[in-house]
């Protein structure tokens, strides 16, 4: 029984982080049908902001808020640098400009800060453990689960009940039609990037909280996770992204528990092969999004 609870907590805390990451990627993809390769670098931006603020006397929560704010700004910058100038011209061009923007940010960190890991300030509660019902788990895991639940609820409310959310869903369903009905295109897209940055920033706090330091290449793993989760869940569906995040966490944790040691190092290869299989079975992912409209 304890083992099951332990497994459940592991899956839920990992899945919560994965789901938020996937959501941040899919909110942009849903509207633009374009993948943002610079998404992982938003996580890096929060990390380095925290590192740079590390020496100051600010309380941790203020530093975290500034870190998330920087990720939001970086998200909006991605739109202006890599997406807006080329998005109407060619899909391949945008994939490559966002890939280039990601390389640009990474190498800027390499050049101006350091190729070596830099320590990031963490709150005390992140390193504490909680004992209950016979299991021991880091408090961080429980905080991750709580944050994910709250954010997902708020996000669902925004998308369903507010004018902004309805406009964004309309844009994701049929962009041209939404524009004709008076939805301001650029504002909606920038907002999507801002939300994307916000989610990446929050995830970054937990992601880096687990490792304790930040390096220029830190964004790769979260980016892959977000890719895979969205692909499994359905590239066009917000619910699909959340489902994909939890499912991927379940697969990852499951493999962690079940694979023998010498195969465990190939875990990524297994996970990614599984993804390829799922895509072959359902090329649109598990959940279909709204009927496809014209891309901008």
């Amino acid at each position, binding site marked *: 029984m304890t083992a099951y609870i332990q497994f459940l907590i592991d899956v839920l805390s990992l899945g919560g982080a994965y789901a938020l990451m996937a959501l941040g990627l899919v909110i942009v993809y849903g509207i633009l049908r374009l993948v943002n390769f610079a998404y992982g670098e938003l996580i890096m931006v929060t990390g380095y902001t925290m590192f740079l603020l590390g020496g100051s006397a600010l309380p941790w929560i203020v530093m975290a808020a500034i870190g998330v704010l920087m990720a939001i700004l970086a998200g909006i910058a991605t739109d202006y640098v890599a997406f807006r100038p*080329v998005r109407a011209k060619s899909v391949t061009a945008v994939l490559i400009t966002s890939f*280039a923007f990601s390389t*640009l940010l990474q*190498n800027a960190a390499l050049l101006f800060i350091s190729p070596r890991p830099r320590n990031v300030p963490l709150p005390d509660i992140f390193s504490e453990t909680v004992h209950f019902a016979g299991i021991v788990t880091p408090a961080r895991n429980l905080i991750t689960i709580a944050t994910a639940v709250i954010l997902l609820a708020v996000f669902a409310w925004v998308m369903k009940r507010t004018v902004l959310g309805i406009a964004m869903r309309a844009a994701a369903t049929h962009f041209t039609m939404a524009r004709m009905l008076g939805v301001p295109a650029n504002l909606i897209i920038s907002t999507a990037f801002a939300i994307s940055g916000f989610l990446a920033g929050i995830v970054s706090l937990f992601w880096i909280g687990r490792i304790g330091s930040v390096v220029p290449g830190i964004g790769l793993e979260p980016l*892959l996770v977000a890719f895979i989760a969205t692909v499994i869940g359905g590239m066009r569906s917000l619910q699909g992204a959340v489902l994909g995040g939890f499912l991927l966490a379940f697969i990852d944790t499951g493999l962690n528990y079940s694979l023998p040691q010498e195969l465990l190092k190939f875990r990524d290869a297994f996970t990614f092969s599984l993804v390829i299989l799922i895509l072959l079975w359902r090329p649109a992912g598990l959940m279909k999004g709204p009927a496809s409209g014209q891309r901008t």
Partner: protein
Amino acid sequence: MAGMKDTALTLVILIALVVALVVGAEIAEIRLFGRIATNLCISLVLVLGLQVFMGNSGILSFAHIGFMGVGAYTSAVLTIPAQMKGMALPDLYPVLAAIQLSPYIAILIGGLTAAVVAALVSYPLMRLSDAAAVITSFALLVVLHTVMLHWSEITNGPRTLFGIPKATDLYLAAGIAILAIIGAMLFRESRTGLLLRATRDDETAAGAIGADVSRLRWKAFIISALFAGIGGALWGHFITSFSPKAFYLKETFVILGMLVIGGAPTVSGAVIGVFLVTFSFEVLRAFEASLNAAKIFTGQVVGVTEIVLALAMIAILILRPGGLFATMEIGVLFGRRRQKASEGEKQ
């Protein structure tokens, strides 16, 4: 219309560029130039391989560098001298430990192995288009990288594999680069290439007139992997020691950058892109090195080259989304000019 004449003219111009490079490097007689020229020729093979798939199918592929790794490791395992193998690859399977082939045969086998691996894994993937195709190719790169990183018996794991005999010189690399140019051009003008380009421009319409989209893409992908495998093996026999790190995102970025700046849809674009990026890279590297030597900054200066390449890519894609040679081969451009000039004379 791009006729036979224009194709021939394009080939002549592109091959002349490679020949000029070799002659230039030989005349200069500076070892560094020889190295740069050899590297450039290897990049040509790799980028042309990517062009065969990406340029004709219009689908971005990230997996290319992975197949370069397959070729490099295959050729390395087949050529490391038997007495070196005990040290270089202590866990190698006994069957393979006894084999020691000539590097030239091994380079070919490296390319074929990459093609076979590509044929096996990619057929189902070719049904996908757009973002799903790009993401799965990214996933494929990660799978290949993970396998290279952990299959210690063959690759020595994440550690550097050394002891690969040096076999690639400027002439071999240039010769294969010229073959790659001819191969890519022939493929582009072949029936498969033409049909594939039709599916690129309008997948539904091409499918409606009977083009088997996934099969066409599959053929191009295999040829593309063959080029990548040969390029990787050539590189392995040039550099003589490498680790799986050499076949990942940084290199993918450089190769993609070369192709995109030059223009993915054309062979000329691929070739010109390689020349432009290689030369600007070398200038920037020299600049970085002199900054480091002058000790203006406290730490090592790293990453300037990549930053400039990234900015160049973004700028070019904003100004010319298709790259420098987006639709027409260089021979067509020259041909047109000639035609216009002669028409002018007649009037």
